[in-house]
């Protein structure tokens, strides 16, 4: 008996007989699932910020406790003036920018797809497009159109459209050759081909492009409001920053995070339901 246990013990160092790459990944680490860790990391950040600022380690000119940010943010969203002057105009502008950028992007992509000549001419510009800081033209537009929604819309649409164009083109190109031939053999017209083949085939890529377009719209609107504007969430934060209203500034930033998170989760849900590749 003793001998046998000893033999077992010497053979034991190889704890696992299954190779590492075949072993199932642990579902939990330290008793927590990955989503639990996501929440835990967020809580850790909040608690750290809270303790650091409450302990007075950082001056309240730079940082306020998250609880104060949240309280101020909550009072802001019940404040009619803030809603009318800042939150709603920004959300409306984001919605309009997204709609215009999305439709314009898909339409432009279709045009480029139809005409190989146009596409080859435009492709180098599309490739370098995001290297150009489009926000630099915003001041010129303010001079032309005045301070208001028009220049914000122009810059944000310019910022958000191209990512929709490139993704939609990728989708249009993904139609397999046999399907193209099938459509030709069945004599589909241009309209039928667009509706029955091109758009459904490209839907996953178009959705990915639209989701990016939404993010770009948010960035475009808030950033231009930040630079120069009389309304909007971006303007509210910039104004608070310039007048040392630190709590207001952080409350505004918190609201942006919430808006972005809600829109992102919403678009992911919609895209997940429409995307046939994930079925």
């Amino acid at each position, binding site marked *: 008996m003793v001998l046998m246990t000893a033999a077992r013990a010497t053979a034991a160092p190889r704890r696992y007989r299954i190779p590492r790459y075949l072993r199932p990944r642990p579902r939990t680490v330290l008793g927590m699932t990955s989503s639990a860790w996501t929440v835990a990391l967020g809580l850790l950040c909040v608690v750290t910020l809270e303790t650091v600022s409450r302990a007075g380690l950082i001056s309240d000119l730079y940082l306020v406790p998250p609880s104060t940010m949240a309280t101020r943010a909550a009072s802001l969203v019940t404040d009619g003036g803030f809603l009318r002057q800042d939150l709603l105009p920004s959300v409306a502008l984001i919605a309009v920018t997204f709609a215009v950028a999305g439709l314009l992007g898909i339409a432009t992509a279709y045009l480029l797809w139809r005409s190989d000549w146009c596409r080859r001419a435009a492709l180098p510009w599309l490739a370098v497009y995001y290297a150009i800081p489009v926000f630099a033209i915003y001041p010129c537009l303010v001079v032309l159109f005045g301070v208001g929604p028009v220049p914000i819309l122009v810059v944000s649409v310019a910022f958000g459209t191209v990512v929709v164009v490139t993704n939609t083109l990728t989708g249009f190109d993904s139609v*397999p050759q*046999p*399907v193209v*031939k*099938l*459509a*030709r*053999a*069945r*004599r*589909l017209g241009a309209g*039928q081909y667009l509706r*029955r*083949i091109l758009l*459904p*085939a490209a*839907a996953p890529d178009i959705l990915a492009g639209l989701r990016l377009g939404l993010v770009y719209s948010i960035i475009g609107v808030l950033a231009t409001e930040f630079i120069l504007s009389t309304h909007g969430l971006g303007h509210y934060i910039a104004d608070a920053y310039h007048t040392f209203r630190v709590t207001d500034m952080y409350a505004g930033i918190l609201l942006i995070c919430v808006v972005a998170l809600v829109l992102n989760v919403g678009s992911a849900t919609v895209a997940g339901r429409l995307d*046939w*590749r994930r*079925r």
Partner: protein
Amino acid sequence: MTHVVARDVVRTFGGVDALGPISLDIREGEFVSVVGPSGCGKSTLMEIIGGLQDPDAGSVAIGGTDLAGPRDETSIVFQDSATLPWRTVLDNVAFALEAKGVPRAARLEIARERLATVGLTDFAAHYPTQLSGGMRQRVAIARALTTDPDLILADEPFGALDEQTRLLMSFELLRVVERLSCSVLFITHSIQEAVLLSNRVVVMSARPGRILDDIPIDLPLPRGLDVLTTPVATEAVGRIWALIRREAQLAMGLT
């Protein structure tokens, strides 16, 4: 009655002679297979008869009318099934009718019927990605049958399938086609498949593809797997294989 008449068809791609001159007749209700070394222009010939490509010289007439583009009465089954992954199996089968503008209720009824013909009734609500390669090809065959074609063109429809599935699928196709009265042009690289299915086997040369031999297969229908061991079949297989081997060696530059 001659159904398909192709006369001196030639196709070149950018100065390279790909096909012909080649002439091919298909009688009504005849099952003709085309075998040949890879790259000999088999698929090009099929696409020309299907109206998907225009010949550079020569002419094609089907049913006495000169061919000008794809016909409604011709159905094509492609090698990679060409199923639409965003549609259910039933909607895939109904696609050809949808393109013709048949109302929804009517086209779904026909689609269900054809789906039963290929034995996939239980998979109507599935998506193509949930099916095996052989089942996807059956979906494509069902779709080809919805428009009541008088001519079916098949471009290596079972080329991507394993040997057993391929033989089973061949019998299934034979069973379906026997009941219809349509002509079939069947492109394949499997000599046994060609002998098993056809009334005639056409052997093509290496590029530019020409007809080397036209072999009638006088075997009674319906055929079973045992026909491959009959003298007629073994002789035909031997004759085709001898021709193909020389052409394949030529095509690969081995001689």
